Structures are given as C-alpha cells and as structure tokens.
C-alpha cells in the first residue's frame, strides 16, 4: 500500500510539471497532499506511531483541504492569471523528468543503503525535491511558484517519513504552523498590491 501511495505522490508531481492551468495545478497539489497524508497515516498505523498518525491527519486537513481551498479562493479574489504555460516545453520535460529520476536513484544509492528504510522510497523522496524545484523554475507567474514551494514542503515531509519514520511531533507541528504563516503572508502580499501577480 505504501509503495502505491508513494507512486501516486510522484505521479501527481510529474503531472503538475506538465500542467498549464492554475486550477488544475491546485487540484494536483490537493491529490499530492492527499497521498502524503494517507501515507503518513498508513505508515503510522504500521509502525504503531501515534505521532505520525496525528501528523498524517493534520496533513490531510491542512494541506489537502484548507490550503487548496485558500489558494483557489485567493486566485479568484485577486484575479490571478489562470493560463500558466510552463517555460520548459513538453518534449524537453519528457526527457528531463526521467533523467532526474534516474540521476536521483544513482546519487541516492549510497545514502539509501545506510538507512533502514526502503531505498526506493528515499530515492523517490529526493527526486521529488528536484522535481518541485523544476516546477518552481519553469513558471514566470507567482501562483505556480507558490504551489511549487508548498509541494517542496510535501517532498521534505515525505523524506522525513521515509528516512526517519517521521520527525518529532513538536517539530512537525512547528512546520505546519510555519506553512500557515506562509499562507497569511502570501495573502498579504497579494492584498496590498497594485502590481500584477
């Protein structure tokens, strides 16, 4: 089950890179966060870690429900441009994404063998980090960049789950709090501007 969820996590991230519409991108962020939350809950149940289950539930509520809703609300409120054509053309992305995946499996090999976790999971987590950076780089508009760094946070959370079976609860809560703070700041930046975002 965890392999299935990690696979879907990666798949949603890859689809996000090809997406050229803002609402569609928010939807893929929602699915990405949903997979992450379910994975945390699933692993939490498997290793009997209540803290990880709680983190998973918070991820589901915050990242899969509240943040996508707020992002859609903000894009409506501030009339953000919905056509977000990526700068990297599709035929280049088709080559680039597998190259990143293979490269990550290659460079993550020495690390993943040191950890008790499944080596593939670690490699996918690290490749997700690179893919989110591609997502941020390939757009000129602010909105997809925001979704990019929210997905980057998801990729880091995935690494935390797969490499360490979750970080301490207090730290996880702090990270969630920081994400909320980021959303408040994003709202304020959009609000007090006459500049097109």
């Amino acid at each position, binding site marked *: 089950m965890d392999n299935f969820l990690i696979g879907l996590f990666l798949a949603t991230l890859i689809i996000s890179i090809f997406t050229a519409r803002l609402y569609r991108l928010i939807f893929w962020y929602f699915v990405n966060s949903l997979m992450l939350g379910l994975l945390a809950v699933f692993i939490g149940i498997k290793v009997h870690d209540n803290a990880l289950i709680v983190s998973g539930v918070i991820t589901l509520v915050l990242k899969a429900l509240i943040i996508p809703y707020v992002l859609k609300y903000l894009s409506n409120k501030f009339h953000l441009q919905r056509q977000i054509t990526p700068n990297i053309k599709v035929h280049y992305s088709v080559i680039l994404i597998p190259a990143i995946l293979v490269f990550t499996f290659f460079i993550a090999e*020495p*690390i993943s063998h*040191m*950890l*008790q976790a499944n080596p593939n999971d670690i490699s996918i987590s690290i490749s997700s*980090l690179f893919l989110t*950076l591609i997502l*941020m780089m390939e757009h000129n508009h*602010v909105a997809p*960049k925001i979704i990019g*760094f929210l997905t*980057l*946070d998801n990729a*880091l959370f995935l*690494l*935390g789950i797969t*490499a*360490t079976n979750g*970080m*301490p609860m*207090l*730290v996880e809560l*702090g*990270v969630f*709090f*920081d994400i909320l*703070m*980021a959303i408040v*700041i*994003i709202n*304020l*930046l959009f609000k*007090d*501007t*006459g*500049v097109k*975002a």
Partner: protein
Amino acid sequence: MIIFFLLLPAILMFIVSFVKTDKIANLLPLISFTIIIPNIMLFKLPYPYHLVGNYLIVDKLGDYVFLVSSVVSIGVSLALMTLHKHVNIKKRAYNRFYRFFALFWLGLILSTLSNNMGIYWVGLEFATLSTVYMIKINYTSTAHKEAWNYMIVDTIAISIILFGIILIYASAKPLLGDNAMNFNALLAHIKEIKMPFLFEIGFAITTVGMFIKLGMFPMNLWLADIERASFYPVPALFSGILESAVMIGFFRFSKIVMQIDFTQLFGFVFIYSFLTIFIVAFLIYRAKDFIRLFSFSGIEHMALIALFWVSGGTFAALLHFGAHAFLKPSLFLSTGVLESKGKYHIAGALRGYKGIKGKIFWFIVGLFLLAIVSVPPSPMFFSEIYGFGAMINMAKHTHHMLAMIAAIAFLLILLSIIFYRFTAIYQSMKYGGTQEEKKVYSSEIIALVILAVSLALLLLPQSMQYLRSIS
C-alpha cells in the same frame, strides 16, 4: 518567569500595533527597550540553563547572540521613529512593521536559544517569513517584486536546510532516538554514530542552505537587490539579527561536525568562503550606492566569520560576529540621512551637517565606515588578526603551511580591494561633492550612540574574556 519576560516585548508589541492612534509610533520603540530585561535575567543564570526542558537551553553562545540581537533591535526601533521624515511611508505601514517585528522576535528567540535542530529550523523559518512583509511596507512595484523574490529564494534556502536536518536526524536516530534532534546529545555522541557519512552530507546540505540565505557564493546578488528595494531599517534588521540567527545555527552544526571530520569541514567552508570573498570584493568595488555597498560588505564579513570559526579561531569569529552585528546595522540606519539627497549621491554625503547632532552623526558614521574595513582600534582589526593567526596555527599541524600562507596572502589582497574602495568612498563623502544641508534627528543619534557604545564595550577585557570562555 523568564519565558514570560522573554515573550513579553513581542506580545506587547503585537497587541499595541493594532491600536490606531498617532502616539503608537513613539510607544512601540519604548516597548522594544523591555527586551533588555530578559537579557539581564539570562546573564545572571548558571549555564547551561534549561528554559523549556531540553528544547530551549541558554548557553553562553546563545546568550551572547541574543544580547547582540537585542541591542540591535533597540537601535532599529529608535531609528524607526523618524523613518517617515526620510521616506514616504504610511502610518498604517508602521504598525504593520511592528506587528511583524514582534513575530520576527518570537522566531529569533526560538532559533537563538534552541537546543533542537527542528525547533531551530521552525524559528528561522518563522523569522524569515515575518520579514517578508517588512520589505512590502515600501509601496513600490520594485519592493513588491523583491518581496516575492525574497519569499521564494528564502523558502528554497530554508527547505534545503530542512533537507539537511532530516538527513542528520536520520543518521543519528538509530543511536539517539528522538534525542537525535538535540544539539547537545549529538555533540556528546557524535563519535558513536554509525553513519558519519550521512551526517556529513546532511551538514553540507544544511550549510549550503544557510550560505544561500546569507548571500554567499554563488547567490551573491539577491540579498543586495532585496535590501536596496526595502526601507533602510529592514537591511539593518537583516544584517544585525537575521544573519546572526543563521550564523548561530552554523556555529552549532559545525561544532558537531568538527568532532568527526575536521579536514573536510575546513576544506568545504574554506573553498566556499574564499570564492565568496573573491566575488564580493569586485562587487564592492563596483557598488554605486550605500545599501548595496554595505550589503556586499556584510556577505564578506559572514564569509570571514565562517572561515575563522572552522579554523579553530572561535574567539576571533565571535568577536568579528559581534562587531559586525553592531557596525552594519548602524551603517544601514545612517543611510536614511546619507541618501537624503539621492541614493547615488556618495560624494559629499558626510558634509552639510550643522549643530551638535550633525557633528556627532558625521563623526560616528565616519568612524564606522573605517571600522568596518578593520582600521584599528576597530574590534574587527583584532578579530582578523586573531582569525588569520588561528588559520596559521591550524596549518602548523599539517603539511600545508605554505599553501595556507599563500591563501591568507591572497585573501589579504582581496580584502585590500575592499579597503581601498571603502577609504575612497570615505574620502569622497568627506572631501568631495557639494555641501548640501542634511537633517539629523535625535532618535537616530541615540541609536547610533547605543550601537557605538556596544561596539566599544566589545573591546573591554571582561568582554574578551567572556568571548574566550565561549570557545
């Protein structure tokens, strides 16, 4: 009780910033003075003092950084009182600045006094996010663009730091469990860790994130662009407080890594710092305005601090760190007056001051400009001597003495380029250009005097002894 006093200034500032009266602009700087109360209390405590279990611990290093940051924050709040006389700012923006300053202060407390890598990261991220909106109080399209730029670049830098922390945690968790997040536990058990390679990779990634945040190689320009677009108290906060919060993390992480692989740590930081100073020396040479000049100079000093620290010159690094934290915000705060006739009017910027306030201003700013390039008796002069001395001492135990001497000589050549540029600018400011009258306000003078006295106090034997005891 101490926690209450630590949080009190931030909570008071946050609440008062919602009050909509004109007198708030004067009340808020007074509130910032209450920051000094917890500092006095912390200095009376036995080290290490557990503030909140194993999560927040006051040690000598944390206390020193917190004190320096507190003094800078008081100086910045005082200079803020007359911000509206130098730039076009709305009253509402003042309150918002303080609201985020309060949140920033909470983040700083967490990151400075934290004994936990995760909490350190949470505090740093919180402090960083709080400063995003401070850039935006300048209602221009450039500031707006740079606020977004700051948000995105800093978030990437912070994410890289978290990536490294996760790897460090993963390497130490089999041995220490949840305690693998604690700096003290890691320091005590680092040699027992079975995966030092993973730990080192984690450290290298964390350090890259921190160095991006500090504007070091190859990300040299982004910080200067952002500071140029903001009102001058914002770069003062960045250079005096936020950079200190990043550096304390570097100090704590590198102290642990030194125990397992000193050679690789030194090589990594040395190359990084060397490249940074090489690039920045020429950027300083080409700088056309004060903010960019001071911003690049800040990057150079951060590189030197990191280099001295990993060379074993912890005393030199801490002295340099303190001197920079007092000098650079003072210079940024003085740009409000220096740039009052235009941001590219360097020639004659130190002329045209009348009255006692004017004379004190040009005298202090002139001294600071020379002190930042290590003209004696600046604390930076001593810290650089001790720092380069530490590098030579370190090389004595290896077979690379000649290489180290050559590297130091090359570094001194780069530093002399910076020295030349600063002295040329000083001469142009004092003796060039035309004499145009500039207005200086009392609060600015008080801020500069507070920071100048703090800088002078660093040279006291007691202060030096305290810094030595940290190392």
